[in-house]
């Protein structure tokens, strides 16, 4: 007996994973490596990787990320993926010749997925099957429901009708030698409406090769029907696997619970542990060569890096640049995905917000403690305005008893310190305030700067680890985060995805691929020293059903309004003196470097800073014109802030060394050296040219 398969489908666009809706809207999710590593660790049945790029080029260069790619084509990504992929891998996208198939197999694919070419040249299926075997040839069929009933096959990324009917086309591809059909419903793509069972059944009935069903899954419970009602040999989905912790194991469990004889849920693999295995000797070499490069100065740094292929542009509505820390897409009108997302958010009606509030209520009630044995939920708090807002909502609007958890990175401003310690009094709640040793923090500050150009690695990882550790320890399954930063900053998700906190997010975005074990053995740091940064095991999280929800997905989120409310109701204090690198006074009081030198390093890397971020948000919120924003950016983005002197004293680094190490992280697509100075194209030059 062959077991039905559960297959995540990943869409690759210019080297990055994207989320897709109706085959049209694509939003960046992140890099494929960390996701595939997670899949190997989860013992996933099989993986489908579809490259949907229009042209075969990507540029993923980021000096501050742990994962590095060689090359700039889809095959290079495939080779990198194959190193961490120990499940069958079907690879598709732009396959036109037998040589294309040969190259993909040689680069790590086990089967190839053919779509447009199969329709244009059916004989190609036969040639490929004869040469590589039927099991290597997967024909992908994109089917669209016709207005008056029936279906039609579309090609060219769901854009071109073919006049073919899916089930007869499937029968034909089988006759021509295909070994499997990957059947996708164009209408259901990203819809979360469940599979189109009628479509699946018609294709399964017309063929005797395996059929993989895809398109429409919005909940774990949607998978089983593809097999039980549709008769598919395997069920697949894309978006759902990106957004939830242990998504695949939970989806698998739902299928098993529905009676499908799938392989069991197996969390963890001794050959593919969740925490990356670093080649420490190679890492040492990379660090040493960076320090060497730093010593040799800017012109040497710049000389070693070819510039980008396309000049940098800025969003025509806000001021987001095309090269940014957060992955972003720009549409044909030159508008960034964050602005589009803000439009979608603005378009959400009061009734819809009410529905979302009730969804939140449902979740909170489901996880509320009924027997007094534990807290109702955990709120990770920094003591900022958002922390106050979250606690206000949870405690006073929904009447839960939360446990507040704070990671203290030893960088509080005086105002921030008063704010965080006021919370237990004004909200009448319990509060765990966790402070790692200062000596460890100093070493992690230095390491973060040298390894990834960010002294605050410890803070980003601490904040996204410690509350989950406390959740596991206190057996509290629900964590309440504020807003998903990337939804707001770069429009990474749809408002309908309801993304939650995941290990992948933490490792890829917050830790930049540098897990706690990377630090062990450096600056005398031991594994035991790193306990605050060690994420609980998947099995623990799975058994407890730990979820970290973002209430920004359920409640209307406007930071400026929150600040006003918490000042009035709870005595929240804003900064008594302005920050140097942004005009906002109410953000990041918990960490003097977050708005300061940490952010200055973002400017060094990508050519923009927090002022740009805040301006973008305020333009989207209608609080500022683009011209006003540009003036602020011009005034503030480049400023080297005063907290640098504290940091240099704190860690014992000289300013010249700091600057030179920082220079090694400059993005060559943004920065170049002219007459010994770093220069870049500027937003205001573009504006004057228009």
């Amino acid at each position, binding site marked *: 007996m062959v077991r039905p398969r559960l297959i995540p489908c990943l869409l690759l666009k210019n080297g990055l994973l994207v989320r897709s809706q109706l085959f049209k809207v694509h939003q960046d999710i992140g890099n494929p490596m960390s996701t595939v590593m997670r899949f190997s660790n989860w013992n996933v049945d099989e993986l489908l990787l579809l490259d949907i790029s229009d042209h075969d080029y990507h540029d993923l260069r980021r000096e501050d990320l742990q994962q590095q790619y060689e090359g700039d084509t889809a095959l290079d990504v495939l080779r990198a993926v194959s190193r961490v992929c120990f499940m*069958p891998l079907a690879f598709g996208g732009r396959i036109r010749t037998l040589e294309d198939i040969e190259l993909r*197999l040689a680069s790590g694919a086990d089967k190839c997925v053919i779509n447009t070419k199969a329709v244009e040249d059916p004989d190609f299926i036969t040639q490929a099957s004869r040469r590589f075997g039927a099991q*290597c040839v997967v024909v992908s069929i994109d089917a669209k429901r016709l207005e008056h009933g029936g279906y039609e096959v579309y090609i060219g990324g769901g854009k071109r009708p073919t006049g073919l009917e899916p089930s007869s086309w499937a029968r034909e591809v089988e006759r021509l030698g295909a070994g499997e059909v990957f059947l996708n419903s164009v209408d259901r793509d990203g819809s979360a409406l469940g599979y189109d069972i009628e479509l699946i059944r018609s294709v399964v009935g017309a063929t005797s090769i395996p059929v993989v069903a895809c398109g429409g899954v919005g909940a774990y419970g949607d998978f089983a029907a593809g097999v039980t009602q549709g008769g598919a040999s395997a069920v697949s989905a894309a978006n759902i696997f990106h957004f939830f912790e242990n998504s695949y194991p939970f989806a698998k469990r739902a299928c098993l619970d529905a009676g499908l004889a799938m392989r069991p849920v197996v969390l963890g693999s001794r050959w593919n542990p969740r925490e990356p295995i670093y080649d420490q000797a190679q890492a040492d070499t990379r660090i040493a060569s960076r320090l060497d490069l730093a010593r040799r100065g800017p012109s040497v740094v710049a000389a070693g890096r070819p510039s980008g292929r396309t000049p940098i542009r800025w969003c025509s509505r806000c001021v987001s640049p095309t090269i940014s820390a957060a992955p972003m897409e720009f549409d044909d009108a030159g508008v960034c995905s964050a602005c589009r997302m803000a439009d979608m958010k603005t378009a959400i009606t009061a009734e819809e917000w009410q529905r979302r509030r009730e969804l939140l209520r449902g979740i909170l009630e489901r996880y509320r403690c009924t027997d007094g044995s534990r807290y109702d939920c955990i709120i990770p708090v920094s003591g900022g305005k958002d922390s106050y807002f979250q606690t206000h909502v949870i405690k006073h609007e929904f009447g839960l008893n939360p446990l507040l958890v704070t990671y203290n990175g030893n960088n509080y401003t005086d105002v921030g310190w008063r704010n965080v310690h006021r919370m237990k009094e004004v909200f009448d709640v319990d509060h765990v305030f966790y402070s790692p040793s200062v000596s460890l923090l100093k070493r992690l500050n230095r390491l973060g700067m040298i390894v990834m150009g960010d002294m605050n690695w410890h803070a980003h990882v601490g904040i996204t680890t410690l509350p989950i550790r406390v959740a596991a320890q206190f057996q509290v399954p629900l964590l309440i985060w504020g807003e998903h930063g990337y939804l707001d900053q770069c429009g990474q998700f749809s408002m309908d995805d309801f993304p939650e906190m995941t290990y992948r997010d933490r490792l890829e975005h917050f830790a930049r691929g540098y897990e706690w074990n990377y630090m062990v053995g450096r600056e005398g740091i031991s594994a035991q020293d790193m306990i605050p940064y060690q994420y609980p095991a998947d099995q623990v999280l799975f058994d407890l059903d730990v979820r970290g929800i973002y209430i920004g997905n359920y409640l209307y989120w406007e930071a400026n309004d929150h600040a006003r409310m918490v000042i009035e109701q709870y005595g929240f204090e804003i900064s008594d003196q302005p920050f140097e690198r942004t005009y906002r006074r109410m953000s990041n009081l918990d960490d003097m470097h977050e708005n300061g030198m940490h952010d200055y390093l973002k400017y060094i890397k990508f050519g923009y800073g927090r002022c740009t971020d805040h301006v973008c948000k305020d333009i989207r919120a209608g609080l500022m014109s683009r011209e006003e924003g540009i003036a602020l950016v011009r005034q503030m983005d480049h400023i080297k802030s005063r907290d640098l002197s504290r940091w240099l004293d704190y860690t014992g680094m000289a300013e010249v060394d700091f600057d030179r190490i920082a220079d090694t992280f400059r993005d060559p697509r943004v920065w170049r050296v002219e007459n010994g100075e770093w220069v870049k194209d500027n937003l205001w030059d573009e504006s004057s040219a228009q």
Partner: protein
Amino acid sequence: MLAVIDMKVGNLRSVLEGFARVGAEVQIAQSPADLEHAEGIVVPGVGAFGDGMACLEQQGWVATIRAEVIDKQKAILGICLGMQLLADGSEEHGMHRGLGLIRGQVVRLEPTEPGHRIPNMGWCDVTPHRTSSVLFGHSSVETFYFAHSYALACADAADIVATFDYGRPLTAAVERAHIFGAQFHPEKSQQPGLDFLDRFVRHVKRA
């Protein structure tokens, strides 16, 4: 060191990465001479039997493989088509001769139930038939990934070390002295598959 024969068609890289993951030293064998210094030989392969054999014959692999395995007693592992090539012959697209290291013929899968699809693509439970073997250790039933339309019917049932069920038991793996084969893809079978490769690697090191 293990030598993985480059069959030109097939998922060579996946096989190499699988062995690399379990810490084995592997090299691609481009020509028969490359087998000389190898401690073990791996024949990967996806595709058709006739093409696979033609590839081995054209470049003079057949005599060398037989000499290394029969005369020098080197361990060999055939994976999927690679296992089928170990047999006497196959009926896939006409009759073809194999390497003749395992007695038997490769025959087309015959579906006996409506749920059976050809190719057989997916995860099947594999039942070991010996209490202890090189390929399976002492392990019980585990699930591996298969992708094939043909299967090896062994002439000597003693060569069959594990079976899977496809309406009736079929050969999942063979083991005859130092000659090994798997119908499934251990390099693509996640943890159980990597464990399987690891056992083969450790056997080669011991031998």
